[in-house]
C-alpha cells in the first residue's frame, strides 16, 4: 500500500541549530510506525517539524500534498491529528469543550463525533462537565487522544502517550488506539519510550540517534536485532 506520510530528508531546527539532520520516514496507510530513540534524539522535533511547529526543510508528503510550506492550523485541517508532548489539553476548559475544540474543523458532525469519543472512552463521558485540569494523568491522555480524533484525522500523531502513566493505564490506552486504527482507517505515527510495547504494536520502526535514522525496518526485525534488544529493550 502507498504511504500516507513520507518524510524525505527532513531537517528541523531550533533557532539556528539543526536538530534533525535529514531523515527519511514513512507511515503506511492504515499502519502504525514508531520512532524509537533516547531522550534528545530528535523524535519529538521530527513530529513538531511535520506539523509546522518548528522551522524545517526537506519534503513532507501527506496524502499526496506537500506540507512543508503550510501552517500548523492548515496541516491540522488537512487531517493530521497531533497529540503533542505534554498532552496539550486545554486545562481550564471542560472535557466536552476540549472535545468540541478538537472537532473545530469538523463542526457539522460535532455531536456524533463527541458521542463516538464517549463510546471509546466512557470515563470521559462521566467527566464531561469537569475541567480538563482536574482529570488524572491517564484520563488527560485519553482526552488528548480523543481531542485529536475529533477532527476525523487520516493520520494520528502520538508523542509519548505513555509518559508518566501506570503500565495498566498505558495498556488500556494503547488497546483503544489499536482498536480505532483497525476500525477507523486512521494511520498512526508514534513516538514512544516504551520500546517493547511500541514494537509489539507497530508494523514499522525507526531508530533515531542524535538526529539521524540509524536503523529502520519492520518492527519485528528491529525487535530481533541483538543490539537494539540490548540498548532499548533491556534483554
Amino acid at each position, binding site marked *: 500500500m502507498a504511504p500516507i506520510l513520507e518524510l524525505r530528508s527532513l531537517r528541523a531546527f531550533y533557532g539556528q541549530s539543526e536538530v534533525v539532520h535529514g531523515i527519511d520516514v514513512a507511515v503506511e496507510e492504515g499502519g502504525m510506525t514508531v520512532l524509537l530513540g533516547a531522550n534528545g534524539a530528535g523524535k519529538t522535533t521530527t513530529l513538531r517539524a511535520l506539523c509546522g511547529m518548528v522551522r524545517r526543510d526537506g519534503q513532507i508528503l501527506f496524502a499526496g500534498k506537500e506540507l512543508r510550506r503550510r501552517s500548523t492550523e492548515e496541516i*491540522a485541517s488537512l487531517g493530521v491529528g497531533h497529540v503533542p508532548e505534554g498532552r496539550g489539553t*486545554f*486545562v481550564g476548559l471542560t472535557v466536552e469543550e476540549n472535545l468540541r*475544540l478538537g472537532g473545530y474543523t469538523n463542526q457539522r458532525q460535532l455531536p456524533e463525533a463527541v458521542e463516538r469519543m464517549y463510546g471509546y472512552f466512557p470515563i470521559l463521558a462521566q467527566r464531561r462537565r469537569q475541567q480538563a485540569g482536574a482529570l488524572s494523568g491517564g484520563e488527560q491522555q485519553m482526552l488528548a487522544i480523543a481531542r485529536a480524533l475529533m*477532527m476525523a484525522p487520516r493520520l494520528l500523531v502520538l508523542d509519548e502517550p505513555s509518559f508518566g502513566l501506570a503500565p495498566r493505564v498505558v495498556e488500556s490506552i494503547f488497546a483503544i488506539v489499536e482498536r480505532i486504527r483497525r476500525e477507523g482507517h486512521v494511520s498512526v505515527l508514534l513516538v514512544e519510550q516504551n520500546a517493547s510495547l511500541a514494537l509489539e504494536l507497530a508494523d514499522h520502526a525507526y531508530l533515531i540517534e542524535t538526529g539521524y535514522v540509524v536503523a529502520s525496518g519492520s518492527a519485528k526485525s528491529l525487535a530481533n536485532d541483538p543490539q537494539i534488544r540490548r540498548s532499548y529493550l533491556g534483554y
Partner: protein
Amino acid sequence: MHQFLQQIFSGLAAGSIYASLALALVMIYRATDLVNFAQGEMAMFSTYIAWTLVNAGLPFWLAFLITLVVSFLGGMIIERVVIRPVENAPVLAAVVVTIGLLLIFNSVAGWIYTYTVQDFPSPFPDRPVFGALMTTRDLGVIGVTLLMLVLLFAFFRYTPIGLAMRAAAQNPASARLCGIRVGRMLAIGWGLAAMIGATAGVMVAPVLFLDPNMMGGVLIYAFAGALLGGITSPVGAVVGGLIVGVTENLVGTYLIASQLKLTVAFALIILVLVFRPNGLFGTAIVRRV
C-alpha cells in the same frame, strides 16, 4: 438614606461603563498578555464616529450600530497592522506600542474634531424614576451595558468561535493543532474589545461631554476595576468596575471633594497591587522556569 441609595444607583451607572472598558482590557490581556493603554482612546474615537453620524442626521440607534461595526473592523485592523508585528517582541515594546496608539488616537481626534468640548445626545430621556432613586438615563446606560455583557458571555460560552477564542488565549499551540487560526482569533478579540469600548464611550459621552481627552479618567477607573476584579477574570472585571463606580461615587459624595475622585481609583490600584495582586477573582500566574 435616600441620597445614599441615589448615589449607589448613579455609581452603578458609572460603574457599568467602567465594567465594560475593564472587560475590554481583560479580554486583550488574556489573549495577548498585553495591557492595551489605547483602549480608552480607541473608545473615544469610536464615540466621535457616532457623533459624526448623528450630526449627519442618522437616527441615534442606527448611528450606534454602524459605530459598533466600524469599531469592530477598526480593532481588527489595529491588531493586524500595529500589534501583530510586535507579537513576539518583549512586553515592554508592545506596551510602548499601545501607548503610542493612545497618543496617535488622541492627536488625530484633536486634529480632525478639535479639542472643543461637544455636546453628545443621549438616547434616553432624563426623568427620575423609582421615587427619584435613579434617572431613566442611568437605567438606560445600565440596561445597554448589561445587555452587551450578556450577549458577550453567551458568545464566548455557546458559539464555536467564542470557544475557539478562549482556547487560543489559553493555549495557542494546542489551538493551532486543532486547526484554529490563532491570529484570526486575536484579531477578532481586538475587534470585540474595540466594540465594547465604543459602547462604553457612547454611553458615557452624554454625561462627560465629548472631547479627545474624555476617556482618560474613565480608563483609569476601568484599570482600577480590572485590577480589583483580577486582571485575568472577565467576571472580575465587571464586578470590579461596578464596585469602583459605586465607591467612587460614595467617596466623592461623603468623604472628599468630587474633583478629587480620581485619587480613589489610584489609591485602589495601589492597595490592590500591594495587598491582593491577583484581585478578587483572578488566578495567580505560575510560570515554570
